[in-house]
């Protein structure tokens, strides 16, 4: 029984970390737009649409720990990851600007910050979605056995 308890505890911690990543990302994106006053481009908004609900769904899954949360959170995270991946390709110039969906307003390739010389905002988004997906997959593997 003790080991089952420990396992449940570890699962909770994994989901908690997952939520923490989502929460930090939400606040980070709000910091960029409301404190540093960077105008978000269209692709940024799509990524937020997938990110913001994650912070809530993952928190709901924590109390009590519900393994089904993976089923609801994973599609959002994957959709966000795909958008972020596309955004990074655009940003890196691997996809030509002309086929980007945001010709008006803020350009999706406008460079705002480069933390440590390479961490751009789209890359931060991709990293966060990747971490969330990885943690969700770990959780689903652990609970399916």
């Amino acid at each position: 029984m003790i080991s089952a308890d420990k396992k449940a505890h570890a699962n909770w911690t994994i989901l908690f970390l997952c939520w923490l990543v989502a929460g930090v990302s939400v606040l980070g994106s709000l910091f960029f737009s409301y404190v540093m006053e960077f105008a978000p481009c269209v692709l940024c908004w799509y990524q937020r649409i997938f990110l913001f609900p994650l912070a809530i769904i993952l928190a709901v899954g924590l109390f009590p720990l519900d393994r089904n949360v993976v089923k609801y959170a994973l599609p959002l995270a994957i959709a966000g990851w795909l958008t972020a991946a596309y955004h990074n390709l655009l940003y890196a110039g691997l996809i030509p600007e002309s086929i980007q969906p945001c010709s008006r307003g803020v350009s999706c390739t406008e460079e705002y910050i480069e933390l440590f010389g390479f961490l751009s905002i789209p890359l931060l988004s991709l990293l966060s979605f990747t971490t969330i997906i990885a943690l969700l997959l770990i959780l689903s593997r652990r609970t399916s056995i």
Partner: protein
Amino acid sequence: MKTHVIFGLSVIVLIVAFMIGSSYYKGKQAEKIGFLAEENAELFVRDHSPTLGSDDAKVYLIEFMDPACETCAAFSPLVKNLVVNNQGKIKLVLRYAPFHDGADYFVKILEAARKQEKYWETLNVMYKSQPYWASHHNPQPQKIWQFLPQAGVDVERIRKDMADPAISSMIDQDLADAKTLNVRKTPGFFVNGKPLQTFGSKQLLQLVQSELMANYPN
């Protein structure tokens, strides 16, 4: 039970970190701009900038504005009252940040009106008639012309004068300064080189008041 505590604490830590980060960033930003103000006053006031109020004023209120910006129109009575009610103490400096599509057009009209010494009258008419020509879904810049005679200007001369390339380079200079000062939205206010940290009429009044107190102690 313990998990609730961990979760609750994390939420609090995240929110507090966000707030501390915000005030830290804003403080740094203000410091940087304060430094710019000392080193390079030209960034705030160019020779070409239209001004209102006494040259002896010790409080400079700098507004980065866009004639097509609704909030600028909403703030204009307040800004004008500040200058009028503190006669000789405040000088208003307008800088252009025409971020709206096609807003240069209106800046050009304004500058052409300035040559007839009808600048402030024209600006007033522009702000008042703004809902008719500046709808975001259907901007109709041509509609401004029917309102211009109210400002007492020679409309034909404006049509001629607004093509002056000097106006375009003035706009470019102002936009470059706006970028340096990190103005991304209009209206962008600075009082004696200090940026308005959080946007709002109350905050603007407070900032102006504190600068008035500092420069006119009695």
